[in-house]
Structure formats: C-alpha cells, structure tokens
C-alpha cells in the first residue's frame, strides 16, 4: 500500500488512474468530474461570465482555521464573489512533489470538497502532475473559477460609479490570516487561539447585491491587506479616501502580535474579508444585512470617499493624529527597532 506520491502517479498510466479514482474522485463526487473527459462541458445562464485563476503555494500547508485546499477554493471563489458574480465551477490542478504524503494529499482534497460544498461551487475538472523531489515544495495548487454575473453588477469590479461621500465598509476583523500563518511557521513561538479567517464570501455578498444594491466597488483584502486595497482603489478611482482607525475591527491577539513584531495590521493578509464602497444612502442598510450574516457579524463602516487629497488614503489614528496609508513595499519583516 503506497503512502507517498511517486513519479508514476503523474505519468498518465495505471498509477495515476488509481490515484484519481481512489483519492480525488472519492471526495470530488459530481457527475461532470467523474466522467473524466478532457474538458468539462457546462451550462451557464446567458449573459456575462466572470473568470479568474489563482495559484496557491502557502507554507505551512495546514494551519489553524484551514489548509492549502480550503484556501485554493475560497480564494478563487472570493475573486468571483467580490466582482459581483455567482461562482459556479472550479478547476483544480495539482503539482505534487515526489515523496509527498498521500494522507496529507487526501486531507487537502477532502478539505477542498468541503469548501466547495459550503461555497456552492462544483469542482468539475482537474489535472495532476508530479515533479522530482526538490522541484516543488510539497504541493502547489492552481484553481480557476467561472461564475455568471448579472449585467447590472458588471461595473462593480472597476468601481466606476464611485462618488465622494460613499462609505467604505469591511465585513470583520483584519490580519487574522496573516498572523495565524506567521505563527504557524513556528518562528516566533506565540501561543494563541487565533485562526485564519479563510471562508467563501458569496453567501455574504449576494444578499447585499440582491436586497440593497448601491455597491460601487468590492475587493477582497488578501496579500497587502486592507492597506493595499485602499491604496490601489484610491489610485485607480482618482478620489481620496479617509479612514477612521477606531472603526477598523482588529482582534486583540492580532494587535498584540503586531505590537511585538512591529507590524502594521493594515498590511497583513486576510482570506475572508471584503472591502466594499457603498452609496452613502444605502450604507446603513448594507451594514445591517452583513451583520445578520455570521460571515459579517463584525462588519463596520470604516471610512469614506472624499474629494480631498486625491489618490491618497488618510488614516485618522486612534490617538487623534493622522497619517497617510501607503502601499506596502513587501512582506513585513519583524523589527527590533
């Protein structure tokens, strides 16, 4: 009984077939993928299609609140969801390092299946490659996603209807994912109950789109954190943004770890957070809808779009001063000074 990935698992023959049947299809159970055709033949509502892809190389593979599999599904689903689309179909491609434990692969695949069910998507096609030991770091996953998007929501991903006075909202606490990962890597020996916020956002966003409208723009705050989303949007829209630090939800543990290491929570990665720009007249309503959802229970209005300081983001600090928020230059490094 094999317990590790070997080169023959990727060479298209008997062993690969066995891997697909015994492992992948055990957990990816839909008819389309089980037909194992070269392409998945799908139906979509007539209209616009949203399409995205992402690759996942996270280390460590398993962390509190998730794993690379859950990330690979939720990350791609969220790129579609924050564009205003309803995600439907996902592809998943694996690059496996020779010697990778089959049990770990199964855990990841099972996790992907669960995340897909929760997100209301189907993993309809996939691919598996195996590379020699040392040519990849355990496992890399690429997922691509397709969803349908109603015409009335197409403007959202560009934010073209943004106006001064529009409100900036976020659906919960920032920095949970990045600090969880940092801790999971074991470099700093922190003990805490912090978990990644990795979750699919479709079921949070669709009710808002259907019941309230007024969404000007959305983006998920992944690498580079909230700071990256705000800076990029300010630059793109040409407007200024004002943020109130006292309104930004941050967990105590994230604050504490950031203080210890000299990090700015605004620049830390998230995997279950969406930043929304909303018509100010509909802000309260959107907030209420989000707060009723468990994925948005800590939602808050954190700022607004302004005419002043065009293309720049100003933070009113919790101590009464203010400063600019800048695009982070790279991953933060722990400081002593």
């Amino acid at each position, binding site marked *: 009984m094999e317990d590790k990935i070997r080169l023959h698992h990727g060479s298209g023959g008997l062993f690969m077939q066995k891997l697909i049947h015994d492992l992948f299809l055990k957990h990816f159970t839909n008819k389309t993928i089980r037909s194992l055709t070269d392409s998945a033949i799908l139906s979509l509502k007539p209209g616009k299609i949203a399409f995205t892809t992402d690759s996942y190389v996270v280390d460590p593979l398993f962390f509190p609140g998730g794993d690379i599999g859950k990330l690979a599904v939720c990350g791609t689903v969220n790129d579609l969801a924050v564009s205003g689309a309803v995600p439907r179909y996902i592809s998943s491609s694996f690059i496996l390092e020779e010697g990778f434990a089959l049990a770990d692969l199964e855990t990841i695949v099972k996790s992907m299946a669960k995340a897909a069910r929760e997100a209301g998507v189907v993993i309809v096609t996939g691919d598996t490659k195996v590379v020699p030991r040392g040519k990849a770091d355990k496992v890399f996953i690429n997922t691509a996603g397709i969803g349908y998007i109603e015409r009335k929501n197409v403007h959202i991903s560009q934010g073209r209807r943004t106006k001064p006075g529009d409100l900036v909202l976020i659906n919960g606490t920032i920095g949970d994912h990045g600090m969880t990962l940092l801790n999971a890597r074991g470099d*700093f*020996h*922190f*003990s*805490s*109950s*912090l978990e990644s916020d990795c979750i699919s956002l479709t079921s949070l966003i669709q009710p808002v789109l259907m019941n309230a409208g007024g969404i000007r723009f959305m983006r998920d705050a992944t690498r580079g954190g909230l700071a990256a989303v705000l800076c990029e949007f300010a630059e793109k829209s040409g407007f200024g943004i004002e943020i109130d630090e006292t309104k930004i939800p941050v967990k*105590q*543990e994230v*604050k*504490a*770890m950031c*203080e*210890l290491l*000299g990090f700015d929570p605004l620049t830390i990665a998230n995997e279950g957070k969406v930043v929304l720009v909303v018509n100010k007249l509909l802000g309260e309503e959107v907030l209420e809808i989000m707060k009723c959802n468990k994925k948005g229970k800590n939602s808050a209005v954190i700022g607004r779009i302004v005419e002043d300081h065009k293309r720049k983001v100003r933070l009113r600090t919790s101590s009464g001063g203010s400063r600019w928020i800048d695009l982070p230059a790279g991953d933060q490094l722990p*400081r*002593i*000074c």
Partner: protein
Amino acid sequence: MCLGIPAKIIFIDDEMATVSVGGVEYPASLQLLPGASVGDFVIIHAGFAIEKVDLKEAEETIRIIHEIEKVSRNNSL
C-alpha cells in the same frame, strides 16, 4: 533598539518565562531581570524582559496626563 511591549509574566521555569499580552502567550528570557515574579508586568524586547513596569509610577503618569488634559479642556472653554 526600542521596540518593547509590556506583558504579564504568567509562568516561570528557571530563566525562561511565559508572558501574556492581548491573549497571546510568548516565551521571554529573564536573564536580564532575574528578580521578576509571576504577576509582574515587564517590558519585552527581542525576546528578553528588560525591566519591570512600576504600577505606582504608571498610575502617576496617567494621573498627570489626565490633569494636563483637564486643564487644557478648561482653558479652552
């Protein structure tokens, strides 16, 4: 040189302490502060406790700062 944060000592084993801040626990060396005890608040810098936080002085500083604020507020009324 300067990044140091006040944390509470919750456990000591020989020269190493476990400190807690904001719900996060973390190991710190007491080699530079051997007199510290469980329950003390200490400043942690680069994994070492460098000094204790004096509770009385902390309260006094807060009192002075509040006093300054009160005077400022009264003067602007």
